[in-house]
């Protein structure tokens, strides 16, 4: 198989942690509008983006995710007040950790998608899938020598 063919064959595995109130609802809206969305993404519903801690994200990478999307309410719109601000801080810290692990920081994306933004949800997911596809497979998948 040539390198080019390999690239074409690569289907990324992406996990999306979506907050129950905004982005999960946006995914529902995108669904009921029947927008076409990349099957690369698997949605995992959490109540708030602030629940998504570093362990969960790193475990997801170690288990082989090529990309992770964390998505919640827009700043100021968090159902719980300030959860998304905390999520943003934790995300910024983890980006640094990822560099140390030899994992491209772009593999982790934080996006704000409100309940009414079905189109934006589809765009965010599809663009992120393309980005991860271009990055290729997760380099630390299965490694345990850290």
């Amino acid at each position, binding site marked *: 198989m040539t390198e080019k063919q390999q690239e074409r064959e690569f289907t990324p595995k992406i996990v999306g942690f979506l907050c129950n109130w905004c982005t999960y609802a946006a995914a529902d809206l995108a669904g009921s509008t029947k927008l076409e969305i990349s099957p690369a993404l698997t949605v*995992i519903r959490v*109540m708030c983006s*602030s629940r998504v801690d570093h362990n969960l994200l790193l475990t997801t990478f170690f288990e082989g995710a090529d990309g992770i999307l964390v998505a919640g309410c827009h700043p100021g719109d968090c159902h719980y007040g300030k959860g998304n601000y905390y999520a943003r801080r934790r995300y910024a810290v983890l980006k640094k950790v990822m560099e140390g692990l030899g994992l491209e920081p772009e593999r982790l994306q934080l996006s704000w998608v409100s309940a009414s933004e079905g189109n934006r949800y589809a765009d965010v997911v599809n663009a992120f899938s393309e980005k991860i596809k271009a990055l290729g497979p997760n380099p630390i998948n299965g490694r345990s020598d850290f």
Partner: protein
Amino acid sequence: MKAKIGIYVCECGPNIGETIDIPRVLETIPALEGYEDVELVPKSFGLLCSPAGKEYLAKEITDNGFTHLVVAACSPRDHNSTFIGVCKEAGLNPYLYKIINIREHCGWIIHDKEAATDKAIQYIRSGISRVLYQSELFERQLEITPDVLVIGGGIAGMEAALSLASHDRKVYLAEKTGELGGKAARFASLLPRQGRGADVIREKIKAVEENEHIRVHLNTELESSIGFLGNFEVVLAGNGDDEKTDLKVGAIIIATGYRMSDPGSFTGYEYADTDEVYSSLEIERMNGGEGIALRSGAKPASVALIHCVGRQEKGYCSRICCNYMMKIAGYFKKQSGATKVTEFFFDMCLPHKADQEFFDHSVGLGIDFKRVKEIGLSGTSVEFAETGGGKQKMDFDMVVLASAMEPSEDTEALAGLLEIDLDERGFFKEAHQTTDPVATSIDGIFVVGASQGPRGVSDSMLLAQATAGRIRCQLKPGGKIVPEVKVSEIMEAYCTGCRTCLEVCGYGAIYFDDQKGISIVNEAVCRGCGNCFGSCPSGALRTKHFTNKQLYREVTEALK
């Protein structure tokens, strides 16, 4: 006992039936690897949320003796509660069930049927794997007190009290000053169509005082409050004496109103006390007494009414000034039809359905309206530029200023005491400006009237009555409340007592146990967002129904 999981795929009419190859899904499930010790029973049904579907599912749960249930259907936002109901009816703890959204996440968005089916199988695998790690949770019922504390005896607070007080619900009304009525009691008239202000307010005060289910505490302020919806323990303290009152209430309504900002503090309005420059409240007072006059006793022949004072600095419109300035213009015209009245405004705000009519009426009285882009005072000389025009100067006998409404002086202290949020303008913050306008960040604490932003009497009444409705629904006398079950808990052995979780919790749901040196979650207050979990450096937290194990199972299956 060997686990036996029922897996029910809903066809959802053609929505899933035609977009996903259900027979292939059903064939695949029994052959899944890693479930040798588990009995998997996959079936499909036409429309599980229909009455026939619910009956079928309940019967299946009972007949098969399922230990767990997975329903592959629509979004949990649509029918999670439907199937929770079915589980309860069939005697299965609903936290041992999971809904899998194969409609919005597969059938509808993956337009290739084979690919959609593969994805659906993957999601169902995740669901089966997760549900095995779910645990039973039990709802608790808590006794409540239906009584209510209202802070602030202005029009909003009185209206809330009157709307709530009844033979089975006591209302305590705490007013900081020595009398009820608030600012509106000082208006000679409300807007023209609302009748004489003093009369309307006097009637309300009388109704409050005569109501045997309302207890009024004058010269009284809130000293402390702990608790949650249905169960607040508050202490009121007299501000002139040492008298303390302990109360148990189910809800707290904040109705502390506003204050007028000092116009002299805004650029362009620096004036001396001896100048003939007045606030709208001073005009109200004169109009209600001897009549509006200059310091010499003479009646003014010309008057400038300036709207929007401080609006630019404050960054918001006070909403009521345009209306009440037109009302004040009417006082002058009534006193003497010859008085020359000029109103200066940046933007005209006419938010209610009768306001346009009032404006047209005011124009008919001969009041001159000037829309300006800049304005300043020098004594009673007004320098201004109209939109699209150059600078001009006009001299008047008297100037009246409509200064911006701002939060009343106790707002910040009260917010701190009750641990609720203020918005960037310093007013109390609603849970959601559009969809939840009277609630606050804490369940059971409500905010009405001008304490949550500039508004007039009629809008304040509206919020007061709305809040009363909310409380009547949430706190029925003799009723109970069921707190959130999917809450956080702290595993004592792992907690290092760093208190990070106390910092991040937006609900004050975590407290510190000094004796044990650890943090503890008050489960009746926790809303289950999981922010504390994300902040805990020692892994002492657990978010029920969203535990690490449960989420890891979902992740692992997704990545297989």
